[in-house]
């Protein structure tokens, strides 16, 4: 089975796609927030790999091209954003203020909790870019002397958590406008959260996409300043 996966160009991708499809069906059937399609599919794939005794590398070699599509898919987020351009123009000041305050909240919260837990400087800068998209986050972490592989793992965990909790958190905080919900999700949980925002609505998805870009760039500058504080 393992050697089949190494040689296959589709096996890993098919397992991933079917798992996600099961995840979506389960969510539709029971509608509980914890039954997040992405989380379900991750658990199913891991369970399958363990049960069939397939190593991660073998799975990765036959599922990896799903990840290669991530770059053109991220570029394609410009299309829903373009469709909502009027909303973006009309609320430019509110949007920018919202994202910047979210980025500052992230940096301050991580600083305070790093002090609280007595993290080392390296561990602190590893976490600073945890809410932004993986490629920017790893670059920031590396530049500031953090452990970029841990950063990548924490970014993915943050994204999946954001994807799972977006609807509940927006309800608890009583976030009223679709624009605000989209920005909240994108600023807190980058592209993985954006996948959820897309499901919630076109405006949410577009604003979440915008937040990936703006919060990512703000964090590049902000993290460099915050790295000097602890």
């Amino acid at each position, binding site marked *: 089975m393992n050697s089949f996966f190494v040689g296959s160009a589709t096996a890993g991708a098919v397992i991933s796609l079917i798992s996600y499809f099961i995840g979506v069906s389960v969510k539709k059937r029971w509608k509980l927030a914890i039954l997040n399609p992405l989380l379900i599919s991750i658990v199913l794939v891991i369970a399958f790999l363990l049960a069939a005794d397939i190593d991660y590398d073998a799975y990765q070699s036959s599922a990896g091209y799903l990840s290669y599509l991530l770059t053109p898919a991220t570029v394609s987020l410009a*299309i829903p*954003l373009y469709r909502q351009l009027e909303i973006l123009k009309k609320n430019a000041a509110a949007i920018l203020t*919202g994202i910047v305050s979210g980025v500052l909240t992230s940096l301050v919260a991580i600083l305070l909790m790093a002090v609280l837990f007595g993290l080392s400087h390296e561990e602190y800068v590893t976490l600073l870019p945890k809410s932004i998209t993986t490629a920017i986050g790893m670059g920031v972490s590396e530049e500031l002397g953090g452990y970029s592989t841990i950063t990548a793992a924490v970014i993915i965990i943050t994204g999946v958590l954001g994807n799972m909790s977006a609807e509940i958190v927006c309800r608890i905080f009583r976030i009223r406008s679709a624009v605000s919900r989209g920005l909240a999700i994108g600023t807190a949980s980058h592209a993985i959260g954006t996948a959820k925002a897309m499901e919630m609505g076109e405006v949410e998805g577009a604003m979440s996409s915008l937040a990936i870009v703006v919060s990512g760039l703000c964090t590049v500058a902000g993290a460099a300043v915050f790295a000097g504080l602890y």
Partner: protein
Amino acid sequence: MKYLKQFTVIMAVTCVGEILKYMIDLPVPGSIYGLVLMLFLLIFRVIRLEQVREAADLLVEIMPVMFIPAAVGLVVSWEKIRSMLIPLFVIVPVSTFLVMGVTGKVTDFMIGRKTDKEGTQ
């Protein structure tokens, strides 16, 4: 030919994004340059929506699946985060929920203030 054309446009813009990443020495990935570039090309009508729409919608729709391989990879990188496990259990959820709440509330407040102003004018 529609899909071929659309896919070509998206891949070409993505590739220009990667070229920009190669030339500019910043921790910004090619996908972000590509997204911003695509948006500007659409705004300035260099690319029309019909030239990318269906292929882009397809990519965006299947995007969640693209995160599965990396997330499954957490099983392998588990060892690396073990030393920070307890702080992470607190820091990740607290900061994620806080950022979501603050961003949403601040934007709501700003939008509300603008609408109020417009209402009284």
